[in-house]
């Protein structure tokens, strides 16, 4: 457990000292959502109708944006070698890194989302469901995204590559995230959507570290 916490602490410390990363992700998130009214027109009714979907798409894109940083630096400066060599199971270290990544990039998205709800004229009853669906969904984005980050280590054009590999795999999260918010807004029970999101999170939590660890090991060969 101690190595897990040590790695978590180190990554959070690095994220805090570099600082700009989290800021950039949130700025991109807000910017993308701002583009939509400019593209489809400022009509309040339309924006309220598509607002939750846009917030989710923007969250998806901006979490992909920061993904390539997850293992890249450790890979380049040789830290990854030592992490793999440490006595701790690599799967667990992967989880620590992903958790740190989610805290530094996913959490700010969740915090910023009600603001975007206001901008997009989502009815105030929906803020709770937007936050809850993002709280369940963004960890899945980070987890599945980390597979892409590990697979594209050392590849040409890593950043774009990750999105191409991972976005198709994240479609279920998008579908259930948005439908959770929409059924909530329509005053229908959205419990099943949240349960499915939660189930996907648990499955990802259980399986993804194995895939990432395998990918990291082969990246070091």
């Amino acid at each position: 457990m101690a190595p897990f916490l040590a790695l978590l602490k180190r990554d959070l410390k690095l994220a805090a000292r570099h600082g700009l990363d989290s800021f950039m992700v949130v700025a991109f998130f807000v910017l993308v959502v701002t583009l939509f009214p400019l593209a489809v027109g400022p009509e309040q009714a339309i924006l309220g109708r598509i607002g939750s979907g846009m917030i989710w798409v923007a969250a998806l894109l901006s979490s992909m944006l920061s993904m390539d940083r997850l293992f890249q630096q450790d890979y380049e400066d040789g830290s990854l070698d030592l992490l793999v060599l440490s006595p701790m199971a690599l799967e667990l270290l992967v989880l620590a890194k992903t958790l740190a990544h989610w805290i530094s990039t996913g959490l700010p998205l969740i915090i910023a989302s009600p603001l975007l709800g206001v901008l997009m004229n989502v009815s105030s009853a929906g803020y709770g469901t937007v936050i809850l669906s993002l709280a369940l969904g963004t960890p899945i984005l980070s987890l599945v995204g980390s597979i892409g980050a590990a697979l594209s280590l050392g590849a040409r054009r890593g950043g774009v590559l990750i999105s191409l590999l991972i976005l198709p795999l994240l479609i279920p999260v998008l579908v259930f995230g948005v439908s959770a918010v929409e059924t909530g807004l329509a005053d229908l029970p959205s419990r099943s959507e949240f349960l499915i999101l939660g189930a996907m999170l648990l499955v990802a939590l259980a399986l993804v570290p194995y895939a990432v660890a395998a990918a990291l090991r082969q990246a070091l060969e």
Partner: protein
Amino acid sequence: MRSFLRWWEMNQINIKTKAPLYWPFFVFEKKFRKNVGISFNRTLIGCMNNIFGTRLQCIRSNRIVFEDLSFHIESGDVLHLTGPNGSGKSSLLRILAGFLRPSAGKLSWDGASEPIHEKIQYIGHQNAVKGALSVLENLSFWLQINGDRGDQKALACALQTFGLEKLANLPAQFLSAGQARRLTLARLLVVPAPLWILDEPATSLDTASEGALQSAINGHSEAGGMVVMATHTPVEADAKVLNMSTFGKTRATG
């Protein structure tokens, strides 16, 4: 009781290296650390007797780097790998650390076919130093990640050996290349392991630090440790040397 614990320990290592069932492992690890304690853990895994490599072959991007390479090291040995660029020094070191698999041939670490991570310290080309962290933070991170909690004595001692004690609180981004290398080498003393795998450890070191490195290596081998290092600098006449250039030849001409 002792033999039971030894068996437990071996099993635990197997769990870690071979079948990373990480959820149950979470629980095990905690219990084990509480009951047995770190120091015991360290003394038990603190030795390694021999490594045998038999007819190893390495292929990198469709090219045979070396083949038919056999060697063996025993406790107390310092093995120097020499040879020109591309002769496979780094590849052999990475095979020894378990990153790479030999494409043919056999390796045994104390009779086991997989290396045990606790027993290896690897220093690669890169320094694995984070610029945003201070020298001390960098070093204590590697201490923690290897399962030991705050052995401050070893930390201070390592910093002193490599002349870093005054820089301890400086962010590592301000270190010169040589100082960063020294910080990397200090890891050897902080996290003890019987097998040191060093890939050109003396890169960008000055003479004084080279001396410190040399005496660290000597001390390690006298204590029964093993060192395998790739080097460019000429080695002493009585040193154990593996000349890598002799293993690339056969296939190339044949």
